[in-house]
């Protein structure tokens, strides 16, 4: 499988108050076409920095990100970055948000896509609602729909379910897998939740603390839908816990 995205020797150093902090240290990662890759690591380790670099919002101090063989030089509508639900525009309705990126398309096509993705994320009846009237989970769906509506090849998701309650989070994971099953975008998903990573990803890249390196890449060889009590699931999950030096006793 040819690599859709390849991050080569990514190093990132931030200068602050005359001190330089190395956040990313020689990161290499390849993501295949249509693959769902999760990146886990301790909080503050630089996962989001890596994702921002892949999406073109930050340029690395050294190294390069290539997508389809071309170096990434900036953000691009073919690759949409999804934040936590706070990225939804509060001044637009659900429809307006989903339509936001479609301004280059003819009107009937815009209408068609807005309707299609409202249905896909299950927000029928809320077309004219403003984000302030929606729950956190619904806002997150709006943001995912806004991203999908422009037909991106890739989605970068930065802890998208981090602000949701645990029940909604579980539902949203199922929704995301269902949507991914239908659309097959390439997905890079950053999370600090190991369970989430093992439930969603084809592969899980485990990052170390700062300066972050990729410690290990784990293949999650369990077909969807995944049984969260199967021995294989628990084995993979526990392996990552161990890799991060976490005891799973409370």
């Amino acid at each position: 499988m040819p690599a859709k995205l390849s991050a080569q020797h990514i190093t990132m150093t931030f200068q602050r108050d005359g001190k330089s902090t190395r956040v990313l240290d020689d990161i290499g990662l390849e993501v295949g076409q249509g693959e769902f890759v999760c990146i886990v690591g301790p909080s503050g380790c630089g996962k989001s920095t890596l994702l921002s670099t892949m999406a073109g919002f930050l340029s690395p101090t050294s190294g390069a990100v290539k997508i389809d063989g071309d170096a990434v030089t900036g953000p691009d509508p073919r690759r949409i970055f999804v934040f936590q639900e706070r990225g939804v525009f509060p001044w637009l309705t659900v429809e307006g948000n989903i339509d936001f990126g479609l301004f280059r398309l003819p009107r009937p096509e815009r209408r068609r896509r807005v309707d299609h993705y409202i249905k896909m994320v299950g927000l029928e009846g809320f077309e004219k609602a403003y984000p302030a009237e929606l729950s956190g989970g619904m806002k997150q769906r709006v943001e995912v729909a806004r991203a999908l509506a422009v037909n991106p090849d890739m989605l970068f998701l930065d802890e998208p379910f981090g602000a949701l309650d645990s029940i909604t989070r579980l539902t949203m994971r199922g929704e995301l897998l269902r949507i991914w099953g239908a659309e097959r975008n390439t997905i890079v998903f950053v999370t600090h939740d190991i369970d989430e990573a093992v439930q969603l990803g084809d592969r899980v890249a485990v990052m170390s603390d700062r300066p972050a390196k990729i410690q290990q890449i784990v293949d999650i060889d369990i077909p969807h839908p995944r049984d969260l009590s199967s021995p294989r699931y628990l084995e993979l999950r526990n392996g990552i816990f161990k890799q991060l030096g976490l005891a799973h006793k409370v």
Partner: protein
Amino acid sequence: MNSTAEPKNWEKLFWPVLACALFLALWHYSVVWTATKVFPSPLAVERGMAELARKGLLWAYIGDSLRRVALGFGAATALGIPLGLTLGWYPAANQVVNPVLQMLRPISPIAWIPIAIILFGIGDITATFLIFLGAFFPIVVACVSGVSNVPSMFRRAGRNFGLTPPQLLARVVFPAALPQIIIGLRIALGIAWLVMVAAEMIAVDSGLGYLVIDARNSGKRYDLVVAAMLLIGVIGLALDICFRKLKDIPSVRWGFRHES
């Protein structure tokens, strides 16, 4: 009635009306008991207003004052919003211009009267210019801070969808800053209405501000002075209420969640 209970509809009207009635009664009896010859009673003021209406001055003066405020405030909005957005958008430009703005801002428009008269003579333009000055700075400052407070996440999302900088300004930064801009406009309109009185006292011979000074100068008509004061208060309140309605527009309501 406790503080969490939603006031009933009749209560929303009843208590303010009662308070006004009490205020008028207090005023009336104060005049009667002190037997003052100078300060007019509410009834005298009412007669004064009726007299103005008969002479056709009441609506003419109200119209003139509103027109000057509309022009001065309108010009301040038309110039202040683009300037404020530009300065907020280009922090480097703001660093250059900001010290001058901050120095001009605390100068009361009243201090500009001599300069304004040299520049524009005595007349409508001077009065409108002073009102403009009063409204201009709060609008610029609100726009600058509105734009710089736009969460970077919104700008990033806009750039991600391929917006050019002008599109980003129009479709993301402006709507995101709009609630704060509206607050600035409301403050500016309040100031414009205050400045109107002073401006009309010195520069023109019509309007509510002129009525205050003219009624005193030509025959010490304190009933008309107080009538003009009441009109200024009531119209100012009405303008503010209209402006407050703006925050019920759906696309800006999100910015006023934590306000009453």
